[in-house]
């Protein structure tokens, strides 16, 4: 696409004016751009439609309980005592735990791939991270429920016994092994498997774009490898890492299957993440929508609307940060 040129050199004689370049768009091009623009609009429209339909379907529930939807913890549909006051924060707690685990692991893996791994291992690891993103969540759920859960109970029980004075690790029934099963912490640990590939692959892309000149400058000043990473790579990639983590948080907030397999549902909020029982909006939708009456379906749509709005805000901020960190730099394919 030709664009109007900037005026010619300043020393040009006054009568030698720059030619105006006419960029005539052909008929075919006009149609082409129209169609492509329509495709872009369709994606926006899809997001808008999701919002519209969630709002429409949740009206019944909001009419029934109004603002109490946000302040009620229980889920009794027939008596109009239902809300997300416990469900939503419990789900957020799972996502935060997942992020606390996934952030250091993802960041360290990204640094290892971008800075330490020899080229052949690097290619393999990039493929493995892609594969990790493609592992079906239901496979992770099976793994978490049947492999991880029985093997981690000893550790969580130990944490609760010895660090129980910290409110997070408290368990009111520390001597009953069953009180550690199906806890928010185990759900968060399992969800972190879904978050690690997002953080790793986005951070790695940013790290690999850190300017070569500055790296060499750091080495020339006598820096060790870690010194170079700390002073060049990490500051350069900071925005990208923050964006990647937020996108990971959005993914963790929406994780359904792993959470459903691991958790036993409760309807009261509790900070005791090692204690059996938890909940999330996604859990409620996945496990209740198939045998729900019209009013409960509406309530589930309302919960879904809140979740969608929340993740959309988190993800959009994340995407803006990521795009800003990427602007100017050329994109990398892998």
């Amino acid at each position, binding site marked *: 696409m030709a664009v109007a040129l900037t005026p010619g050199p300043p020393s040009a004689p006054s009568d030698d004016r720059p030619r105006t370049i006419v960029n005539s768009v052909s008929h075919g091009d006009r149609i082409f751009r129209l169609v492509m623009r329509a495709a872009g609009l369709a*994606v*926006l429209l899809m997001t808008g439609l999701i919002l519209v339909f969630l709002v429409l379907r949740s009206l019944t529930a909001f009419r029934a309980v109004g603002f109490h939807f946000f302040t009620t913890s229980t889920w009794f549909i027939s008596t109009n005592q239902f809300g997300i006051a416990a469900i939503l924060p419990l789900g957020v707690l799972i996502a935060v735990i997942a992020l606390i685990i996934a952030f250091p*692991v993802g960041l360290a893996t990204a640094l290892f791939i971008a800075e330490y791994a020899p080229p052949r291992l690097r290619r393999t690891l990039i493929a493995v991270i892609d594969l990790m993103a493609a592992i079906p969540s239901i*496979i992770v759920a099976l793994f978490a429920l049947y492999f991880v859960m029985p093997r981690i109970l000893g550790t969580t029980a130990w944490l609760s016994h010895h660090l129980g004075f910290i409110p997070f690790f408290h368990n009111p029934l520390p001597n009953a092994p069953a009180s550690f099963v199906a806890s928010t912490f185990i759900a968060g640990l399992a969800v972190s498997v879904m978050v690690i590939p997002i953080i790793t692959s986005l951070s790695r892309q940013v790290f690999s774009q850190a300017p070569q000149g500055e790296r060499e400058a750091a*080495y020339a000043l006598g820096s060790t490898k870690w010194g170079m990473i700390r002073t060049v790579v990490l500051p350069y990639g900071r925005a990208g890492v923050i964006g990647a983590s937020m996108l990971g948080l959005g993914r963790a907030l929406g994780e359904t299957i792993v959470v459903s397999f691991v958790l036993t549902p409760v309807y009261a909020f509790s900070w005791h993440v090692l204690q059996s029982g938890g909940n999330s909006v996604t859990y409620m939708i996945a496990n209740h929508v198939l045998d729900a009456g019209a009013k409960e379906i509406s309530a589930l749509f309302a919960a879904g609307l809140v979740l969608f709005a929340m993740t959309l805000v988190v993800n959009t901020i994340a995407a803006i940060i990521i795009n800003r960190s990427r602007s100017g730099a050329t994109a990398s394919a892998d």
Partner: protein
Amino acid sequence: MVTQKAGPATTAGTTTPEGTATAPASTQAAESRVRIVRISLAGTATLWGAVVGALALVWVLYERVLPFTGALGFWLCWYAVFLVFYASMARMQWDRRDVINRVTAVAFAAAGALVLLVVFGTDLYTAVRGAASVVHPSTWTQSLAFAGPDSPLSVGGVAHAIVGTLEQIAIATLFAIPLAVATAVFLSEVGGALARPVRIIVEAMTALPDIIAGLFVYALFILTLGMQKSGLAASLALTVTMVPIIARASEVVLRLVPGTLREASYALGSSQWRTVWNVVLPTARSGLATAVVLGMARGIGETAPVLIVAGMTKEFNFNPTSGPQISLPLFIWNYVHIEGVTPQYIARGFGAGVALVLVVLGLFTLARKLGGAAPGELTKRQRRQLARQGARA
């Protein structure tokens, strides 16, 4: 750990332009090459000493002295003790800066190893637990129509779910490719004021809660338009989740096409859509194929979107447009989570898991094969074709 073993390869990315790392150090001091990373006996011995020492100490304490249980706790303790051992052993020999450098390198490598372990661990565990089910040929040829909760594993299988999975992903891909690639072309080739919000929304939608896609299709097509639960509805839900993923990956690939190629095409007088159709898309073909296949691999494992809209059945249903149609993830969800009452059902669930992992791995291998080529790099067949055309001209 890897830093030290990697030796010369690691330095290649930093400073040394000459690739001949094996050149023997010359005796003339002025010309001798400085080797940045050395594999020294002391370094390797320190590392392995810390590994073994930590293992021995943790075993004695964890298994014999202290009242600890749980395999994961054991390895966590081992890792912590190992880092302390390594740091203190290194501190005895080297200065502080060097110690920090070495400890961080080992910690990062451990994170990489952990990720590898998780990826292969989940797949291997599924394979081991599913082995009892997948060895029976009935798993691959029969549906569950004539099998009850207590039927032996040699009766009934997951073939109906495999059919559903393949049909649903095929339809979803058919829907998703045109929309996603067109969006990517819009973002990278057309641009304009609209491009920025679209790019941000596409990126945000890649992490859309997967169950929301199912809810949306349920609200629009089933509750509002009166469609029945079917494989087609499931495909639509998968489309909603796949479009942003494919669009984002495709845009990244399209932006890698060199601008000079586009300019050459314009200079020859072609219009924009001709340039996109004949230059940009063919150049990025292998990358686009990778993007699509990776999107398929992501879509095929999605359970939550299809959970609400696909319906549940024990029988073969080859027609995606009518009647409930089960898929592999949904099969696992139903027989392990909802009805996981008998060991047979759980074994069948793991069997379906093996089938699912195999499909994902197959798609993934395909993606790697396709994606091996850089933009513009020709395959053998394309090169032969070009040679033939050249000979004819």
